[in-house]
């Protein structure tokens, strides 16, 4: 995978970066707020990453574009909200959800690792894949994933094993009895919630609710915000419902197709003369069947696959709804205690919007538990030694790299995710991530670039930085790193272009204003080339 071009913006202002080369690219500026992070996050976002933009940047208002070479073919991605359009010379594909995009990516662009999760095979989400080679500036917590979503660090390790060809198996051992008890509890919870919902529905009118005693303006503002979130929750639920309906439709389609095929075998026709049941159309020269077995089984497989994708899309909606509900709750917690009556109002809304949500999520957990229980009997071979060996191989490489950049350092890495209580001070966190990404690259020998936003965060000394860059150069693959320089460093032209290093200076960008009209015409041309009017955004 090679990054060739990144752009983002809207009709009025935009930014396009196309100076990337296939070696080490250092994007730098003196001081912060020059747009380096927006560029890197924009790039990853365009390829389906979870948004981790600096606060204050309304990413939902913009389009994000990238031109990326994957397996020697150029692909263009254009993302707006959760829709991504993919284009190459042969096709244009519109994906309306990130799950859809993932499956398209997996099927058409490049196969993604498949891991076992909750007792079933799952194509990993792109944001999990990106953690193999991408490190953003924010949310860094060495002990866990940077973007969690529905994944945990065990899933990351599963992915690493899979990429090294170690058989994919559920790392956790389930205890049948335990799972059954869990299932019972879940069922009971669901029952209780249903009761609660019934009561909540009885009290839908807020009695004597007045706004007299509270600051009207504050109240209205708050109310608007909450209503906005509430609307977004309702919209998402509506979308989820539609998707769910389509899934049901496909499931019934499978039944119908089966019965259409059966009709024929039930009403068997025999030849009156010889008794043969091989009756084919030969009148007026028509000899072919309307479809053959291969076509039919291909259709059935595709429908099954589609149902699975729909399930994932529904889960994606679940997560989004959960996020919005959390946001809603957070807003309410931030309310001042003066809003006494308002709190009353809150209970009503919460009851209305989230009890059935909770019921729904219980149902999901029940399904999951059922699935686990039904799969527990499946025997899987023990390859814990292979797994341990692979982790050791990676951590050995990490330690080797660590001693190159910090010969006197006293850290030792034993795991890809250090324990929570292990704190890294100063530059140690940065060194850990550096060693981890490079070691994973070396041991797995993957085809992705290395992308690090803020590669010397945490006051990495100049000596260490020099050694790191040397290591990047020796990878002989595309590396994109950003760096914020102090004035005195900037003044002496710290980074210089060489055969293996391509420096890109962002200093001339206005503070907090990477987007400009200068690029808007080109960007609009790009967007229009996607026939964007097709994409109702």
């Amino acid at each position, binding site marked *: 995978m090679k990054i060739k071009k990144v752009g983002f913006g809207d009709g009025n202002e935009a930014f396009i970066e196309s100076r990337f080369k296939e070696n080490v690219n250092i994007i730098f500026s003196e001081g912060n707020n020059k747009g380096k992070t927006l560029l890197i996050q924009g790039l990853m976002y365009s390829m389906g990453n979870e948004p981790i933009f600096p606060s204050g940047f309304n990413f939902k208002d913009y389009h994000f574009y990238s031109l990326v070479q994957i397996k020697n073919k150029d692909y263009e991605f254009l993302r707006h909200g959760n829709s991504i359009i993919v284009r190459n010379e042969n096709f244009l594909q519109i994906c309306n959800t990130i799950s859809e995009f993932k499956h*398209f990516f997996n099927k058409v662009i490049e196969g993604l690792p498949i891991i076992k999760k909750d007792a079933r095979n799952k194509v990993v989400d792109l944001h999990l894949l990106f953690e193999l080679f991408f490190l953003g500036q924010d949310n860094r917590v060495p002990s866990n994933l940077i973007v969690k979503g529905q994944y945990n660090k065990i899933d990351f390790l599963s992915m690493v094993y899979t990429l090294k060809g170690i058989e994919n198996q559920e790392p956790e051992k389930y205890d049948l009895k335990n799972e059954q008890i869990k299932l019972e509890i879940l069922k009971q919870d669901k029952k209780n919630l249903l009761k609660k919902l019934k009561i909540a529905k009885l009290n839908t009118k807020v009695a004597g609710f007045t706004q007299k005693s509270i600051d009207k303006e504050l109240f209205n503002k708050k109310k608007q915000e909450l209503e906005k979130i509430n609307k977004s929750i309702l919209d998402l639920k509506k979308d989820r419902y539609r998707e769910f309906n389509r899934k049901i439709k496909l499931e019934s389609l499978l039944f119908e197709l089966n019965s259409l095929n059966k009709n024929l075998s039930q009403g068997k026709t025999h030849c009156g003369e010889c008794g043969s049941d091989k009756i084919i159309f030969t009148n007026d020269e028509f000899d*072919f*069947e309307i479809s053959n077995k291969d076509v039919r089984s*291909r259709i059935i497989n595709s429908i099954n696959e589609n149902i699975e994708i729909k399930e994932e899309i529904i889960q994606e909606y679940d997560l989004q709804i959960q996020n919005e509900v959390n946001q809603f709750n957070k807003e309410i917690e931030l309310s001042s205690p003066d809003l006494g009556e308002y709190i009353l109002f809150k209970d009503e809304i919460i009851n209305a919007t989230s009890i059935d949500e909770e019921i729904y999520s219980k149902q999901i957990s029940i399904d999951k538990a059922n699935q686990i229980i039904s799969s527990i009997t499946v025997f899987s071979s023990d390859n814990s030694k292979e797994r341990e060996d692979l982790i050791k191989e990676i951590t050995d490489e990490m330690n080797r790299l660590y001693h190159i950049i910090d010969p006197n350092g006293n850290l030792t890495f034993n795991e890809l995710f250090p324990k929570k209580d292990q704190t890294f001070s100063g530059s140690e966190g940065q060194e850990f991530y550096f060693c981890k990404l490079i070691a994973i690259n070396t041991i797995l020998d993957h085809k992705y670039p290395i992308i690090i936003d803020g590669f010397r965060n945490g006051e990495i000394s100049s000596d260490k930085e020099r050694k790191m860059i040397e290591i990047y150069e020796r990878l002989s693959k595309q590396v994109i790193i950003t760096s914020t320089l102090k004035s005195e460093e900037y003044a002496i032209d710290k980074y210089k272009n060489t055969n293996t290093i391509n420096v890109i200076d962002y200093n001339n960008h206005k503070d907090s204003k990477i987007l400009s009209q200068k690029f808007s015409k080109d960007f609009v041309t790009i967007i229009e080339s996607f026939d964007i009017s097709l994409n109702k955004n």
Partner: protein
Amino acid sequence: MYIFKNTEQNNFKASDLETKSMLYLLGMHKEKEQIETIVVDCFNDVTGINTAENNLWDIQSKNHSIMNPKKIGKSLFTLFDNFESNFNFLEYILFIPKLEPKYLINSSLNSYGSSNIVERTIIRVENGLTAEYERVNKKQPDVTSLREFMELVIYVQDYKRVNTYIKQITKFKSNSIKSEEFYKSIFDEIRNVQASKKNSFIEGESIKTISDVLLFNRHLHKRDIHTLIINRFVGGDLFAINTIPFPFMQVLNQYDDIQDQQDLLVDCNSNICKSFFNKNDNKRFWRVTESIISELNSDSSQGISDIYNQINGDKLKLPFLNKKSLLFLISIIKNGWKDED
């Protein structure tokens, strides 16, 4: 225990090659556009007839494991026999596996005339043909006639892979990657139909004009083969990748809501699936596909609504295909249609 030893094992290989030779004639031959009908096992293994029914392209296929010059000559007999008949054969093609390079002047060619065969070999080929002629007709062939024939005959080498033949036939190109088996199953279907054409008895029958041969129902129309292949491709792509065929955008854009668009796509795919599974009304569905293809053949720049009107979409009343689904089907076929340069 009994081991089957004397079955006609060559039959399978031979009919494979016959099918390939037919697909060659329809998909790769320089005059493929003119060839409209294929006659099986009448004049020869495979014979192409043009629309006006006044020209014939004759193919004999031979699959000997060792193709020595004598055998090549022997294989040419039926072609030569046709050459001597008073019917108008335009071309005489011997369809064979790759020959040993030592027989050839330029062994990289896939089709060539006798001039590409080294002199020593061509003499032995002619001897083989003469010997076969004498065996059958109990007399010597006319030397000038034989020389003239040898100048005309064209040798075509088998390309081996079944998908190559299938892919070349139609202008429809599928977006998704299909397995070797997928192509093989289409190939087998064509082979079986071709083989079933031989089940009637025509030995000793005679005809006066070329068109008389169609009375024996030993022929296949080019459009049937095209329809079959396109049908299989379209069927194989349903739900497989959710790419929206470009021409369908005009229908999709009538809906503002993405969710409505998604519903429509699922509905259209589902309806076409049902048509593919519905064996009770397959003839009409087949005719629809056929007429869409024929519309595209006559003018591939037509819009999908034009095609819909041309094929009388409103009056078709197919069990599952409502207007939008039919437009979707037209869009898929139009989208895959790649005119050659």
